[in-house]
């Protein structure tokens, strides 16, 4: 034992902070109330009819609580733009990424490539399009099986990271250019606002289903919303990751 003597004020601080934290957490964790089943019963009976989606979670965040989804896309927009701004104004150029921060000779793109082996190029470059297709599937089938806008969007972002990690300098796709991804994200947010306003034109209110009275099936609006949200989330997070990896040109 080292035999450190803790001062009285330190012990007092520890005891006070621990009791403050426990005073907040313990009533949450020790409450004996049963979880109320009213929400689950109502959704089981009416969820599929009212929104057209078999996946009840999709019905909730696209139908009953669509304002939460709108707010969360705004939070994503602000966070991605804030991160890129903080990194870009810190004195290193985004095109060099971490290579410009002093770990390698500046301007030596060959050194950056020499650090990666053939394994990464082959595996991630070839797996990238497969992950993108899987992300598109998860996004568009979100109303029938587990999936949806957010889930598909983050899988598409992982696919964009794969493609940008595995590309050689001479062959590159459009999807890893940062300008394209930034415009896709802004376009996705614009489409979401338009889709929300489209309900007003039909007389159903903000975020109302514009197809509710016509002959089209009620699931069309859900699929469209899923695709728009997936586009926005995927482009936003992919843009942030591509900028961090230093592939901005």
């Amino acid at each position, binding site marked *: 034992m080292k035999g450190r003597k803790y001062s009285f004020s330190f012990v007092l601080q520890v005891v006070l902070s621990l009791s403050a934290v426990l005073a907040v957490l313990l009533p949450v964790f020790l409450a004996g109330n049963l979880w109320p089943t009213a929400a689950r019963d109502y959704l089981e009976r009416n969820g599929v009819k009212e929104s057209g989606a078999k*996946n009840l979670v999709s019905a909730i965040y696209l139908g009953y609580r669509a304002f939460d989804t709108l707010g969360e896309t705004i939070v994503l927009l602000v966070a991605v733009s804030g991160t890129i701004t903080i990194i870009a104004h810190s004195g290193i150029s985004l095109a060099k990424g*971490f290579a410009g*921060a002093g770990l390698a000779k500046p301007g030596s793109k060959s050194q950056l490539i020499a650090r990666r082996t053939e394994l990464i190029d082959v595996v991630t470059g070839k797996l990238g399009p497969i992950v993108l297709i899987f992300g598109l599937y998860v996004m568009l089938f979100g109303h029938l099986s587990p999936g*949806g806008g957010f*889930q598909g969007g*983050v899988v598409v*972002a992982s696919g964009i990271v794969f493609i940008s990690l595995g590309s050689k300098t001479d062959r590159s796709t459009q999807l890893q250019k940062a300008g394209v991804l930034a415009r896709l994200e802004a376009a996705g947010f614009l489409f979401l606002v338009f889709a929300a306003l489209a309900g007003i034109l039909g007389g159903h209110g903000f975020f109302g289903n514009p197809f509710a009275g016509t002959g089209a099936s009620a699931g069309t609006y859900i699929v469209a919303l899923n695709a728009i949200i997936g586009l926005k989330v995927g482009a936003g997070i992919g843009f942030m*990751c591509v900028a*961090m*990896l230093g592939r901005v040109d």
Partner: protein
Amino acid sequence: MTVIILILLVGLSVYTLSSGDLLHGTIALSAFSLLSAILFYLLLAPDVAITEAAVGAGVSTVVFVWAIRATERKDAK
């Protein structure tokens, strides 16, 4: 089954916060996300499982590795 996974999660989080190398801590955080994705699947929540797996073991790990790679990697405790 969920109790076993929760015990492993507690052990991994203690290792994350007290390791001497930040990169080891990041890989332990990625394993934490993977285990919690499995936990969500066992708890009848497949949507949350897909999101946690793609976000925690994918995007979040990339961001942490970038921050450590661009700065420094050892923690002098």
